[in-house]
């Protein structure tokens, strides 16, 4: 059973990545612009695979491969602790939330290595800039996750899901999901938090990516969106809990909803300058998340 559940992870990531890429290409419709269909991501992937993967001069060969592999692995590991049925996760861990938290933190390393490896200026600027922004994002993330674990009295994601039987966390802790969405945008290099691969540095850490290497990095980005959305669905929307339909179907529907919201925010919110964003994160997001944790703590007493 566990083996089957673990085997389901690559399939979930692949289908989820395709759905996320399709949502990305559907988004223009909301802006009254021509949108592309669900086949477009496959066509674009094929276009990348049909091209050569260029190696820059004197790259860091080890980290060149390690970066996308690590990003993809972190998405898979993060997803593995999310329960598909109430009480059943591919990897049932009493500290599932801690495992997810470490996947979040190590994502910073994966993105940094991706910018470091090609030995070129724009990727390196993107890499350092991302670390500066992503580190302070991780602190609110930890407070938000601990707040969600308080009513459950456990760090296990299945216990957090079970604790939402009477009331989902999105209603019990209304600041949690909005704060967690900041984390999602950062982890998946999107919109207002895409300081790694922005247009001002010619795609930043991806500026030297071509062909299959580029396709792999984009796939890893989308996979992380799948893992993040599933975790947000489990922690705030009751994961597989729901009437009539089987648990996995509920989880999928809620994951898709979070994914659509993240994609929408990524397209809809402007990106400010890095120094101003740093200020906002330390001065607004961090105290807000601490307040959120304090309220959750008092309520859980």
């Amino acid at each position: 059973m566990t083996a089957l559940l673990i085997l389901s992870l690559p399939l979930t990531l692949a289908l989820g990545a395709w759905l996320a890429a399709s949502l990305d290409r559907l988004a223009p419709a909301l802006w009254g612009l021509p949108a592309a269909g669900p086949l477009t991501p496959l066509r674009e992937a094929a276009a990348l695979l049909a091209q050569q993967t260029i190696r820059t001069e004197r790259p860091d060969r080890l980290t060149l491969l390690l970066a996308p592999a690590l990003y993809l692995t972190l998405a898979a590991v993060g997803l593995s602790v999310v329960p598909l049925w109430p009480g059943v996760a591919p990897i049932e861990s009493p500290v599932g939330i801690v495992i997810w938290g470490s996947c979040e933190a190590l994502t910073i390393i994966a993105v940094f290595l991706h910018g470091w490896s090609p030995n070129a200026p724009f990727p390196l600027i993107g890499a350092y800039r991302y670390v500066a922004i992503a580190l302070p994002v991780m602190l609110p993330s930890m407070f938000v996750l601990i707040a969600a674990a308080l009513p459950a009295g456990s760090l296990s994601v299945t216990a957090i899901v079970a604790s939402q039987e009477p009331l989902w966390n999105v209603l019990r802790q209304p600041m949690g999901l909005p704060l967690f969405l900041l984390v999602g945008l950062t982890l998946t290099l999107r919109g207002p938090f895409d300081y790694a691969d922005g247009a001002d540095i010619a795609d930043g850490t991806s500026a030297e990516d071509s062909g299959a290497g580029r396709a792999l990095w984009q796939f890893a980005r989308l996979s992380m969106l799948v893992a993040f959305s599933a975790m947000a669905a489990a922690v705030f929307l009751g994961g597989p809990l729901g009437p009539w339909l089987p648990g996995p179907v509920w989880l999928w529907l809620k994951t898709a909803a979070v994914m659509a919201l993240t994609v929408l925010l990524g397209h809809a919110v402007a990106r400010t300058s890095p120094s101003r964003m740093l200020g906002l994160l330390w001065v607004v997001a961090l105290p807000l998340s601490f307040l959120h944790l304090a309220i959750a703590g008092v309520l859980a007493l």
Partner: protein
Amino acid sequence: MSWLTRLAAQAAVPVYPCIGPGLLAAVEWLFLSPHLRRTATPRAAAILLVAGQIPPRAQAGLDRLHDQLPHPRASLTWDGAGDSTPDLRRLWRELLAGRGDQPDRLPDTPPNEWRGKGDHGQGGKGMMGGVPYGRPMAMTAKDLRDGLELDAYTARFGPFAPMLPPGLEVEITLQGDVITKLTPCAPPFDQGLDASTPSACAARLLHLLGLPLDARRVRTGKRPMGLARLRALPPGLGEVAPDNDARARLTAWLAGREDETHIPPLPDLLTGLEWHEAMLVLNSFTPDALRRACLEEAEA
């Protein structure tokens, strides 16, 4: 053709444009086509679109860019007349069918000889600095803000960098992503007034703010919808006169008003800013005004 290339042939054509004088607006209109995708880096493109007559001073940059495209690759020259989308799509299908792949234009050798100076022969000090084989290396220097010795990196950007107006070449010294020194080397190409219309300029700035969908809307005369599109620009950024900062200029453009800003010398304007801020400031002026400012500076 294999199933992979057949699938790829239906994708939007990935194109990196090198824009010559007078064709900026035409190229931006061209990329509103859903059949084309403007890539931010030559590494993601299959076709190099050479729009207009590239002046001789930018020819070497064009050739270097050409050689950075992954194989199979091709280039297409376009004079701005008619729609080049069908030609680009045909070229893309031919490339995928294994025809027309272009070889390198420049020899695959370093642009400079090995410099004989320094412990390691690279022209710097110790293991740092200099331009070994023509590649600029970082060297420690005092940080502008606190005097800490950090790695300073000097390189030339342009003339076809996607975040700069076409033709503009600047030599920039960066410490991290802070610009500590900036020297304009060549002005932007003359793009005529249709590249400096409020909608064209607003679209460029919105694109840099991470709102490409809004940029497309504005380019086609619609209102933008993105959140924080004005507030994302830090207040006072790129201020050249009282109440005339980047945010005020974007507000004016979005209201359809022309901008008549006189730009101070670029080094005064951009030194000390982060790269992201500097690019926002540069794109908060019309290409026409930037060109005039660079020419005045060169004369002075």
